């Protein structure tokens, strides 16, 4: 596979390390009342869709960017690649 890195252009997927669903960006608040339930859901349950999947890849043999790749799990077609940092910010994460 080839991942079109937003900063570096197309790179072979073997340069990257895969983590999983991009929902791992949405880490719950550990101090909240329902933290135990929220973290169970966050750490263990997955949509695992057959189709479009937003997922985290790390450019381990490259610039060490974490990327959010939108890829179809039936065809492997990649429709979008974003810097995970940008995605995290749009999802309200900061410090």
């Amino acid at each position, binding site marked *: *596979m*080839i991942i079109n890195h937003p900063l570096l252009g197309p790179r*072979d997927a073997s340069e990257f*390390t895969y*983590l999983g669903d991009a929902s*791992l*960006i949405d*880490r*719950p*608040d*550990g*101090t909240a009342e329902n*933290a*135990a339930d929220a*973290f*169970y859901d*966050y*750490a263990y349950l997955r949509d695992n869709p057959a189709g479009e999947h937003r997922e*985290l890849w*790390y450019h*381990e043999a490259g610039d*060490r*960017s*974490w990327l959010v790749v939108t890829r179809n799990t039936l*065809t*492997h*077609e*990649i429709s979008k690649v974003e*810097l*995970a*940092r*940008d995605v*995290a*910010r749009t999802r309200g*994460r*900061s*410090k």
Partner: protein
Amino acid sequence: MTQVNRLTGGQIDRDTTLKFYFDGRSFTAHPGDTLASALLANNVRLIGRSFKYHRPRGLLTAGSEEPNGMVELRAGARKEPNTRATTIEMYDGLIANSQNRWPSLRFDALAVNDLFSNFLSAGFYYKTFMWPAAFWEKLYEPIIRRAAGLGSLSMQADPDEYDKGFRHCDLLIIGAGPAGLMAALTAGRAGADVILADEDFTLGGRLNSETFSVGDHSAPDWTAQTVAELLAMPNVRLMPRTTVIGAFDHGIYGAVERTGDHLPSLPAGKPRQILWRIYTQKALLCAGATERPIAFENNDRPGIMTASALRTYANRFAVTASPRVAIFTSNDDGHRTADDLHAKGVKIAAVVDVREDAPLSYDYEVLKGAQVINTRGRLGLSFVEVALPDGSTRTLDCGALGVSGGWNPNVHLTCHQRGRPVWNEALAAFVPGENLPVGMSVAGSANGVMSTHGALRSGAEAAAAALDLTTQPDLPEAEDAPMALKPFWYVQGCKRAWVDQQNDVTVKDVKLSYQEGFRSVEHLKRYTTLGMATDQGKTSNITGLAIMAEVAGKSIPETGTTIFRPPYTPVPIGAFAGRMTGKDFHPTRLTPSHHWAKERGAVFVEAGNWLRAQWFPLPGETHWRDSVDREVRQTRASVGVCDCTTLGKIDVQGTDAAEFLNRVYANGFAKLAVGKTRYGLMLREDGMVMDDGTAARLAEDHFVVTTTTANAVSVYRHMEFVRQCLFPDMDVQLISTTDGWAQYAVAGPNSRKLLQKIVDPEFDISNEAFPFMACGKITVCGGLRARLFRISFSGELAFEIAVPSRYGDALMRRLMTEGKEFDVTPYGTEALSVMRIEKGHPVGNELNGTTTALNLGLGKMVSKKKDSVGSVLSEREALTAPDVLKLVGLKPVNPEEKITAGGHLMNIDGPVDATHDQGYVTSAAYSPNLNSHIGLGLLKRGDARMGEKMRLVSPLTELNVEVEIVSAHFVDPEGERLRA
């Protein structure tokens, strides 16, 4: 007489004669021959034996689809089993031997299987060999196994090298027949970067096998001229002897180039084969088509071949399989073969055509509406029996029979990403469907365009379409005959007619498969093994499917499709491995003082990709324990030095660095003072301990984090995840400096004295100025910058000192020189391990991914005041239950007895079984300080069981000893030494 079956013409170099050996007999051939054509030239028809019935077999084809004509090529460690004679390019001195026969090819004992074939029908083995149960392994299977397989491995390491490479292009053209050549001309003349790959050693595909003209030239001449033009184009790369094996995601194609297989021996340093990954936006499949045989009684005798193969042997290789040839065909193409052979002077016994309206010939007899119903001949064809439409039969005297049942487009690569071919009624064949790999298009006969003119046209058009070109070259004139064919798969009423020749699958087997309910194509393949042989059913799959459709009373597309998986043809495993073999399997990482350690005679051990010194034997030390015990004693008595460069080191900088570490580590870091180091416990989000290490605060906004050697990469990755994905606005930057600094532990009561000799005098490292857990930037040896950490893994007064990598070797040598007065010793990973076990420090054996901080006795370190990674899930009920495992120390009651890591702990008088398991031993060592074996273990409620006697069992190593549960801190439990 040699080469009795040679004809005139052909693309062989008669000026040079090559010698080769088959089954020990010597023959001659010419450059341009394949082993197959050379054997035929020498009138050798019998080449091998079939898989199941050991039937005598010859050649069926002239190409890579060959199911029968397989040999063991070369000898010794280079022996290559199951090599298709049709793809072996002749070289001088070639050695080949037949396989799957004993004692000889002509007299094969297992041919007896053929007599019992009626009992060995498809799937018979699923229904028997079940009683008595023990007999399967002891009797039946060994017999079956011995008979299984075709060729044999040399059992020696492959002495040749393989390479890997990467290539990029605008258009990859797969196959250099008429469509591929025309496509390459079109794209090449337009200036595109083109790769044209073909599995054959001569480009041209079927053009080399034909006699008709292309433009004003013969087909081979036009081919040669076109190849010459392409060769002259700098933007076109021709890759003969290169098989494109698979279409992978996003326009990546795998290709294997056979760079050395046609040479008698490889030039030094040259690879035998190269695995290419070709990256391209567009690919054009011009893989041609494969002629399929017709199934009839005894259709597998040596001498019975596809008609097109006979034509190829005659036209390209100037060889006939026999001076007298018959043809059995369902289409006009069979007649073309007869014409060409006749023109070369081969006697045509007759053309048997199943069609009532078959064309006639002035040159030879055509039997219209006739079918071949049987053949005869021992170890090769002698007679063909033909049923005529009037019900009479006729016997033809011939040594070869060309069979043509039509052509199957080579759609293989279109299926590699789950594309499904579609049925074409006119061709009675599958052609590429719609779900092609992205960027792939298909031209020529691979796309069902069967005439030469059509192939040229479709190649040019497809290349132009793929590259958005507006101009195409003029097309040369060429034959444009329509495919005139009657779908005809097998002759009715035959008893044994082969569909898959290598695996011995007959028409009857396919029918039995249907009868027993194995009716989907996949069930058919799996039940009968049809299409599972080394040719992957290139000449048999469609026929099998057609027979299944007939007995099911359905159309072929209703019955199913056959799809193909990579690789297109079998690929040596060595080619996929490339140079990653032997010692080069993984990179080897050496620390800066490796060569010094080697000079000292160190014994090294693999630690991931690193090599680390395990111990440093001195003269007279005969057992590793002698060395390790001495290193431990010397270190604890005076001073030792250990290379700990392999620890992961991560620089953390930024105004939010402290807060960042506070989130990453379970324990607090926000308030760590500058100049101080703290032990850090890192959890995974699921609450298990991920890693431990230290973080030293060199400045308000600068920390140096260490990780274990094993986790250096994954911890760095995790920290980047936390930084980029969880806290994207923190002002913090990370960089791995593992390779940047050489680092040494200097441990023991004299460690400070030793270091004071090299630390520059302006830096005070006395206990008052530089107490336990202090850190700082210093200089040593007169100005060399260094970092000093007062941390201890051994439990002694100890420091770790880091210098830029290139000074590591010099520093180590200096420490040894300066340390002589203290009797300094270098120590390796074994002594390191002994001392950490004596001190109760957990390492990889304890941090096994299933242990929590609570398990390791570090539960209090998990701060409840903050939200750090892993803190929430570490609180789950089963992880905090009263009986969770706790880290303990273990001592044998009898100090002579050994403790084994991996042993299990049982109650002293209780039963010894899994349900009463109390825990296990994680680490064990001999402690020269305690003069006893000791261990660390994880024990249920371990912290509450100090002093309890337990039974340590290791039935695997036949160990059963009484142990006492003690504190994991065997040495200096109060930590007085490290604060000294």
